[in-house]
């Protein structure tokens, strides 16, 4: 066979590693180059892993991810809020201390620099958690666009090992390792507490899996990182916890219709096309990209992001063409994959607005053949509401 997938590692120099790299390799993880980072894509079947098992663990129990490749930018100072308000499209003034929100940094054209989770850590302190592939670009962007504000901008990306503990049992696992009452921390809120003997550890009830769970930020030295990683897996054993790689991370976020930079959002796609209206507060009088977005809204959308489900045998993959009934090219797949929990083959795609109606039949070109698909409501998966 030949393989059409991410470049194999073993490429010398320039590849970046998280503090847990040796641990992943020791566990036998299959490694891949993800935007310049040597990351685990999945762990071995021999230890109960593999993309499908990892995905299902997160949906039914708990999975543990090394997401240290993501970046962290801290804004602090008397005008930190004003600075955040200028570069972020959501309304950070709504954030109480300890609260977080999903947002995006936009170019003046109303297109995406990156998506981001904005956390308010203090009276005048905000933390932006950004994508791995855009660390340097984002930091430069934030620094260059906030110079006029009395606010310090720091790149803390290398200071933290970030571990995501995701799934309905995620909170139970973390609770075993920390003193504070995690049940008091609502979704998209953060807390600080003692974790495995470490003081003042930031723990946020956030994630990228469309499940409940936490993301923790611990010191990035290898020894501490490995110890905590292993303690989490040990604490999670009774709940069926497994380590999870980028493969499952992608299938989980896809089922939840969470965007991935470079796919659903990019510097050539605007907020309205991506369907992220509810995170964009146009009532804010000013933010980078606002003017262009107003014009774009007035002009009307030409294309829109839709969810597709394959109706015939075949898997839609990133970049595949979307065709209308007569085989004419009308759009493209931004992300496509089998969905392990839903047991369907799904995709997100940009199509002309007129094809964006749920129930519309289209085709996806798979190796030269049009394979039937239908526009479906999104998100494809929504986690069940917790009872009691």
């Amino acid at each position, binding site marked *: 066979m030949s393989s059409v997938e991410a470049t194999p590692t073993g490429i010398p120099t320039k590849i970046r590693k998280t503090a847990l790299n040796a641990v992943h390799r020791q566990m036998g993880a*299959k490694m891949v180059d993800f935007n310049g980072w040597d990351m685990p894509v999945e762990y071995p079947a021999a230890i109960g892993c593999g993309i499908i098992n990892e995905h299902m663990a997160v949906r039914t129990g708990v999975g543990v991810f090394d997401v240290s490749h993501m970046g962290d930018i801290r804004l602090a100072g008397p005008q930190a809020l004003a600075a955040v308000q200028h570069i972020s499209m959501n309304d950070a003034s709504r954030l109480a201390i300890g609260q977080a929100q999903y947002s995006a940094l936009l170019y003046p054209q109303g297109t995406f620099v990156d998506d981001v989770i904005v956390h308010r850590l203090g009276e005048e302190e905000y933390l932006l958690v950004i994508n791995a592939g855009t660390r340097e670009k984002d930091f430069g962007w934030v620094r260059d666009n906030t110079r006029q504000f009395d606010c310090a901008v720091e790149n803390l990306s290398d200071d933290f090992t970030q571990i995501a503990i995701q799934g309905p049992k995620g909170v139970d696992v973390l609770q075993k390792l920390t003193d504070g009452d995690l049940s008091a921390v609502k979704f998209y809120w953060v807390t600080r507490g003692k974790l495995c003997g470490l003081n003042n550890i930031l723990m946020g009830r956030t994630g990228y899996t469309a499940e409940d769970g936490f993301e923790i930020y611990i010191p990035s030295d290898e020894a501490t990182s490995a110890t905590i990683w292993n303690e989490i897996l040990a604490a999670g054993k009774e709940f069926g916890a497994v380590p999870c790689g980028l*493969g499952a991370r992608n299938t989980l976020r896809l089922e939840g219709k969470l965007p991935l930079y470079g796919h659903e959002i990019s510097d050539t796609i605007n907020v309205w096309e991506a369907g992220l209206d509810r995170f964009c507060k146009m009532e804010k009088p000013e933010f980078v990209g606002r003017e262009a977005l107003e014009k774009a809204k007035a002009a009307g959308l030409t294309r829109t992001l839709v969810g597709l489900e394959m109706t015939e045998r*075949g898997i839609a993959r990133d970049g595949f063409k979307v065709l209308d009934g007569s085989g004419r090219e009308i759009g493209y797949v931004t992300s496509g994959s089998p969905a392990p929990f839903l047991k369907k083959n799904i995709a997100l795609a940009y199509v002309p607005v007129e094809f964006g109606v749920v129930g519309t039949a289209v085709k996806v070109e798979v190796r030269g053949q049009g394979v039937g698909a239908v526009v479906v409501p999104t998100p494809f998966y929504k986690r069940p509401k917790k009872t009691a």
Partner: protein
Amino acid sequence: MAYPTDRKYTKEHEWIQVNGSSATVGITDYAQQSLGDIVFVEVPKVGAELTAGKTFGTVESVKAVSDLFAPASGTVTEVNAELATSPEKVNKDAHGSWMLKMTLKNPADVDGLLSASDYEKFVAEESGH
């Protein structure tokens, strides 16, 4: 892993088990391990002509699409319908999960392929052990 000696192997990680002028084809355990969870197997219909060394189908894992290369030339006589609904069988037992059966155009095609021990060595080198 000791690879079964009742068949020959290709460098593209297919196996071919010959029975007179017919043969059975599948992928190796090394292939299924490298691919991860297999979700889709696409093979040609009965009657299709295969050419040694050319692609004849695809096997897909969650993350990747891989081409299948014909170990020998001939005509497809039977296709394993089970793999359309249960592709994960290939992960569970790659050497026991056949993909297609064929008549061989030139049985000598198979002579040049790798023996079980040669394939083992080849795999050891590939995986850097």
